[in-house]
């Protein structure tokens, strides 16, 4: 077992993945790895076969949708050396069971908001020294609000243990909402007349509305923005 692992998510920054180390994917990520001609060593999933009914109207019968993941194909990939680690026992899938209880007991925390949390905790448990995250972007609203915190917890935990965690460019992980640490203000580089000069330049010498209709918001004489009022 090497000292570096790549955790491959399904976000846009997965395109940066160099596949130069052991690679773990999640759910249907094997399709993207295939298209990128990459490598995959482990597949993690926290789902059971998802069957849900669809009501097509009172005059038509109820239908049961098929599972969203191709469990049969995943089972076939196991014969090619893929190791599948699942949170649940799935009938027809020769997967290993994720040691959730043992890891919760070992690390003293059950804060897992996403499959990535399980993967990071697993990498810490297995003693990897370097974890690279690609495609773990957390762009989606639900991911950002409800799942990002859990992944950041385990990233912090890994770094606290001395494990190097590298996050791909473009991910929202471990990034402040303003781009700066809390309370740090951006330095105004221009004079207080800059906003008016810029506005005149952009409009070709004429302001779109009267100067009185543009209210400058200043703080201590330094501009931080301007607000236009009708």
């Amino acid at each position, binding site marked *: 077992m090497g000292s570096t692992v790549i955790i491959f998510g399904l976000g846009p920054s997965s395109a940066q993945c160099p596949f130069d180390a052991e690679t773990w994917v999640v759910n249907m990520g094997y399709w993207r790895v295939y298209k990128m001609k990459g490598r995959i060593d482990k597949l993690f999933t*926290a*789902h059971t076969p998802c069957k849900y*009914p669809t009501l097509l109207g*009172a005059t038509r*019968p*109820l239908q*049961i949708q098929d599972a969203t993941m191709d469990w049969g194909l995943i089972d076939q990939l196991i014969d090619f050396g893929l190791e599948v680690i699942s*949170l*649940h026992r799935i009938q027809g899938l020769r997967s290993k069971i994720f040691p*959730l209880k043992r890891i*919760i*007991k*070992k*690390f*003293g*925390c*059950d*804060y*897992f*908001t*996403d*499959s990535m*949390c*399980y993967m990071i905790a697993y990498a810490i448990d297995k003693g990897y020294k370097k974890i690279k995250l690609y495609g773990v972007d957390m762009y989606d609203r639900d991911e*950002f*609000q*409800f*799942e*990002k*915190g*859990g992944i*950041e*917890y*385990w*990233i*912090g*935990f*890994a*770094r*606290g*243990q*001395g494990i190097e965690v590298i996050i791909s460019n473009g991910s929202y992980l*471990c*990034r*402040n*909402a303003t781009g*700066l*640490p*809390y*309370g*740090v*203000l951006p330095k105004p580089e221009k004079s207080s007349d800059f906003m008016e000069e810029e506005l005149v330049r952009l409009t070709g010498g004429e302001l779109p509305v009267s100067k009185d209709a543009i209210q400058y918001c200043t703080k201590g004489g330094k501009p931080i923005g301007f607000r236009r009022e009708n």
Partner: protein
Amino acid sequence: MASQKALISTKAPIEETPLATFEEELNNYKIRMSKLVPFPPGEIIILGMGKTRELCPWDAEVWAVNMGYQQVAMQRGHVEKIFMAHTQTKDIYGRNMFKWEHFNQMADAGIEIWNIHRVKGLKSRLFPLKRLIKKYGTDYFGNTIAYMIVWAIELGKKRIRLYGVDMRTTEEYGWEKGSLEYWIGFARGRGIQVDICDGSYLLKTITGKPYGIKYWSLKDVDPFGLLRRKKLPEELPSSSQLIEATKSTQSPPPPQRLSPWVQL
């Protein structure tokens, strides 16, 4: 690794009493401080301004944030350090939110005031933000509590207890909670015990269980098993038949008004 326990106070929350003038409260505070026994070394309480601050037992060194000293006074508590990340700010009425004269008096009374900014007229210590960013390799600080946690790590504290750090408001939950959880994880990775007060939203999933673990029962969603049928029955059961089917000696009586779905 020892499990991190949730802080559940066995005492009733301390009632917050109305404040007297600042000078009187500061005088009362000095009297309380003179009677305090030494705190256990290596342990601190980080006190936020959320509701769970009322569960703080005040049995260790306390670090507060911004205007939290007022809540400390209401609970007849104590504070050793106050952290801020603001210069002067005005409220919607144009009034100054921070009274620097109060902070200066507290600084004269022995309370350390830390700020990431140099503020003219404020007797504060400058928080070494750049040095800490360089040392820990990240500038991911979403709010003042994150600065406090990293400062506790920097000072070599062995146990950090969080009270009042609830992260329940929309902005706190959406924008700031992640950074706190990052630093809590970092501290725990370093072997520091971090205990979070029960009632805080920190380190809690939205379902109450780890991701992927089932947290609901199909019977709660579909008590009549209609979703499991492959086709609709030719004759739907009547309302009285459905009510009879749900009757049980152990379950409560069903509601009289049935859902529109059943009355097709």
